[in-house]
């Protein structure tokens, strides 16, 4: 458990990086590598409050049964005055790889800005409808 808490702390540092500048793929891979060699148990771990030069932050890390961090969720970030604020339902930067890696082949419905009936004919939704994708 102590090890897992340290992952969440490490994730905190990464997330702060993400808030200040776009996080690089290299950083994300490093985080995965660290966890991959660990004995972390699956579950959701809330990190400690971490003091940074940008203020106090806190994150939750979700670890799967393979010991990999599959998600990092900000719990507390700093506002413009560097005060620490609860952001339980606020939108914050999400790791790009985390979003992109959630692609599924089981999609049967596509959500996007409204298209006209004409544009629908060349749309992804039409392709799925034609293919009879029902997953």
């Amino acid at each position, binding site marked *: 458990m102590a090890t897992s808490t340290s992952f969440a702390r490490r994730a905190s540092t990464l997330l702060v990086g993400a808030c200040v500048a776009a996080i690089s793929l290299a950083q994300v891979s490093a985080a995965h590598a660290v966890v991959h060699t660990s004995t972390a148990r699956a579950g959701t771990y809330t990190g400690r409050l971490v003091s940074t030069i940008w203020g106090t932050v806190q994150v939750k890390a979700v670890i799967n049964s393979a010991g990999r961090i599959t998600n990092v969720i900000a719990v507390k970030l700093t506002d413009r005055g560097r005060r620490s604020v609860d952001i339980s339902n606020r*939108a914050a930067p999400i790791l790009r790889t985390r979003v992109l890696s959630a692609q599924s082949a089981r999609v049967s419905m596509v959500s996007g800005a409204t298209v006209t009936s004409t544009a629908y004919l060349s749309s992804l939704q039409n392709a799925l*409808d034609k293919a009879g994708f029902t997953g």
Partner: protein
Amino acid sequence: MLTRTFDTMGTTVSLRLVEVVGVDADAAVAVAQDAFEDLNERFSLYRDQSEISRIARGELTLAQASDEMRSAYGDALEWRDKTGGAFTPHRPDGVLDLSGTIKAVGIQRAFDTLRAAGYRDFAVNCGGDILFAGTPDDAESWTVGIIDPADRTRTVTSIRMDQARPACATSSNAERGEHIWRRPDTDITFAQVTVVAPDILTADVCATAIIAGGHETMNQLTHAFDIAVLVVLNDGEFLGNAKFSELLNT
């Protein structure tokens, strides 16, 4: 599972229906289509003889309008207040335009007719805004792909819908929307906004309002409503709240 499509409200509706013994799909789909068409006849600004077109031309005042028109107008005004004005039922030229809420009302009504026909597990997708019931016949939950605003032939991610929030709507700044009027001071870095909510009207209005109102509206609405939000920024990066992260496929 059946797949059915039909055109209405200037876009295409796509349905998924897990078959139920004894329910006539053709009849049920026709009733669902009528639910959209009835609304379109009254509320479409593209139809010269619709009630809303007559109001736009000044031939009819709101005071003389039908109960349904005034009720829809009242609902839209409530959403204007709940979104701090980011969502509005008026075009900049003052013309009343209820297309921002009517499509969602149509989805809900069509959904209700399908349920009344006997369906338990189904989905109604109207031009990219979707309302789900139950589960598909071959998986534990419905999966939705979120379109890539930079390349509409692809998705950027996919999410698993849950029973608590069965509605998903997406708005983009490329939308030639009748109902999206961005304020001059709004952050224009939001390329696309997806909102997952307990009902389709909340999902649709919040997605539109966040595109129109930017960061400030997003923070206000994620605080006020039980919604999951994903924003695709112009540079391809993402913003999302914890509720959205939890829906992502792992």
